[in-house]
């Protein structure tokens, strides 16, 4: 069944798709967004029940392979030491992110020139800066101006509370003489644009029932829909179709009842994340593109980057915050910029992780033997309860062709669409960086008074950031899209999610993904008369 053609079809209603839809709405074109999941119901978020920790490991797990909701698609990540995390629903990954919201640095766009690795981006920090500012206004960013690790930037809302745990970690950094600063956060610390302020629920990673965390279902989307954008849920795209002129002419998708349908479109925009976007492109085979759409140079799906994570936790004698309060509140970028004497190139950010809930304290304690079986359980548990805090290190991953997304020959989603397969190995540079991060964080926590320190690196479950699989660039031989997000091969096809990234930086990517989406939207608006030239 065919439907009325639309001017712009955006695939994915997450961080990028929402920003693009909002920005393009002023053109008055007919804009439709397809989302394979549903609208979120904050009244159903786990923090509304006593079983919130259990649900965060079940139906609100950030692993699609564990969650296995009907909106999800399976991902074969057996061939990767880092497992994929995502969310499928209006808001996408922003429903489940921590809201830790750093920008890239000027140096992040020029790693080849500065450090001789990876590639330079075709744009720079100054190009993106106004779009960072615009995105900040819509999302509502809390923080403290004056961070010595960044060029000057404004903050709209007061910083998140340090709490007892934040003070503990801050004292550790001060004892070492190292940088730390209140994190920029996409969590409202005061009422903002119809959202209420944070009340320290602590369950940030499984949806914010308070609506303080800026997920795009409650930030961009209400504005975009009021401006005329149509958002259709439960529409799962199988492939993008092309005409004889190498132009996309629409998508084949499955609706909520599993019926195959066709939607014609003048422009197709992919915003399905660093795994979902190459999956759709690689599934879109035709006579003109036998190896997948926009893939004549065999780069679609390659250069997959995560941020290898290290998790480092300390046990303290004095009570910390436990699970009460936003997951994070401060960062350190002491080891962000390259210093080859450390034994690796590029660097990482520390993101404080406030504490653990009662269930996770017990589970981790028993799994590691720190809490014994039997009568000793209760005393050992109480030595850990509300007494753990620490941090994660977010390490810059460098692009490598062999790290890639392909199509699994067997695995399929509930609509029969072939699923993605991940092939990824951790580089020696990443291993060295992780080891450095664990060692330095251990020093911080010990300086803060930790009785014992534990770590995990790489963090197996930490495949939150999915980047690089349809990279931007000026050279069609070495990039999938041009410097403003348009496919080199298909001139009415755009990519606006983390797939665009040329390098990964050492920070959470969502703020940059959204700034890029706004930048690409602006480039499109400036070229409406000759968009396909």
């Amino acid at each position: 069944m065919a439907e009325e053609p639309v001017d712009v079809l955006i695939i994915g209603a997450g961080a990028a798709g929402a920003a693009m839809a909002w920005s393009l709405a002023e053109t008055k074109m007919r804009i439709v967004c397809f989302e394979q999941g549903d609208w979120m119901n904050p009244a159903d978020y786990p923090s509304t029940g006593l079983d919130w920790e259990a649900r965060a490991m079940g139906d609100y797990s950030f692993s699609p392979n564990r969650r296995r909701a009907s909106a999800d698609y399976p991902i074969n990540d057996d061939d990767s030491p880092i497992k994929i995390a995502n969310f499928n629903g209006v808001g996408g990954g922003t429903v489940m992110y921590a809201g830790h919201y750093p920008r890239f640095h000027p140096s992040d766009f020029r790693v080849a020139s500065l450090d001789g690795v990876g590639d330079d981006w075709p744009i720079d920090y100054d190009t993106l800066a106004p779009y960072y500012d615009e995105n900040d206004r819509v999302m509502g960013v809390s923080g403290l101006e004056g961070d010595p690790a960044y060029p000057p930037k404004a903050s709209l809302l007061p910083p998140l509370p340090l709490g007892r745990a934040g003070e503990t970690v801050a004292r550790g950094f001060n004892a070492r003489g190292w940088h730390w600063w209140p994190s920029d956060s996409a969590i409202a610390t005061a009422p903002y644009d119809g959202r209420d302020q944070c009340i320290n629920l602590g369950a940030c990673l499984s949806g914010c029932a308070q609506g303080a965390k800026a997920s795009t279902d409650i930030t961009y989307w209400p504005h975009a829909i009021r401006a005329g954008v149509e958002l259709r849920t439960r529409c799962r795209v199988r492939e993008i179709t092309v005409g004889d002129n190498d132009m996309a002419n629409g998508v084949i998708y499955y609706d909520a009842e599993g019926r195959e349908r066709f939607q014609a479109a003048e422009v197709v925009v992919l915003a399905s994340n660093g795994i979902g976007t190459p999956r759709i492109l690689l599934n879109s085979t035709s006579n003109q593109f036998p190896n997948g759409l926009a893939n004549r140079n065999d780069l679609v799906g390659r250069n997959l980057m995560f941020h290898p994570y290290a998790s480092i936790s300390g046990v303290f004698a004095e009570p910390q915050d436990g699970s009460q309060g936003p997951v994070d509140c401060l960062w350190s970028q002491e080891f962000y910029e390259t210093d080859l004497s450390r034994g690796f190139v590029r660097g990482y950010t520390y993101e404080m992780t406030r504490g653990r809930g009662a269930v996770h304290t017990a589970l981790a304690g028993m799994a590691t033997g720190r809490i014994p079986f039997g009568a000793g359980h209760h005393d050992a548990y109480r030595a850990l309860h509300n007494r753990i805090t620490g941090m994660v290190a977010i390490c810059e991953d460098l692009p490598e062709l062999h790290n890639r997304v392909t199509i699994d020959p067997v695995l399929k989603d509930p609509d029969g669409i072939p699923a993605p397969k991940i092939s990824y190995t951790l580089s020696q540079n990443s291993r060295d960086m992780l080891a450095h991060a664990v060692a330095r964080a251990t020093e911080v926590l010990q300086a803060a008074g930790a009785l014992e320190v534990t770590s995990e690196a790489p963090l197996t479950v930490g495949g939150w950031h999915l980047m690089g699989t349809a990279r931007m660039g000026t050279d069609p031989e070495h990039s999938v899209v041009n410097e403003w997000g348009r496919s080199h091969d298909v001139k009415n096809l755009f990519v606006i999610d983390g797939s665009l990234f040329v390098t990964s930086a050492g920070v959470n990517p969502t703020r940059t993904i959204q700034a890029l989406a706004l930048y690409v939207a602006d480039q499109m608006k400036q070229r409406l008369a000759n968009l396909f030239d």
Partner: protein
Amino acid sequence: MSDLIGSDRSLSSETQETLATLVGTIIPASTAHGVPGADDPAIFADLMASAGSVLEFLEEAMRGFAACAPTFSSASEAERLAAAEAFRAAEPEAMGLILSLISQAYYRDPRVLEALGTPARPPFPEGYEVPAGDWSLLDPVKARGPIWRET
């Protein structure tokens, strides 16, 4: 709402009795701390109710445990502890599943949470108070000056 696949099936009564004894061995009641054991009827019922989506794996785990500790039900407390430890060493994934179910059910029981001094309520809608903290801790960081890399 979750649309995970659920099931009305359950473990046999004999297996449930063994499991109850096992979880009560791992987390026994404590009069000193004023808490029930994990084999408390309400807590165990909660555990079983939440095991639906993993029942098949739990059944398999309990079959493995029965093979590993065939005399568990009639054993002494010390022997039961030893059997639980031996099973963890032999079948870490199976024991991991059981520990996950115990932790989830036990540490959301209102009596247990209250004994820990944790409010026995969901986080939302009341939330919690978290102190803003001492911002003078930033003074040495500010004094050091910019560290970002010029390009």
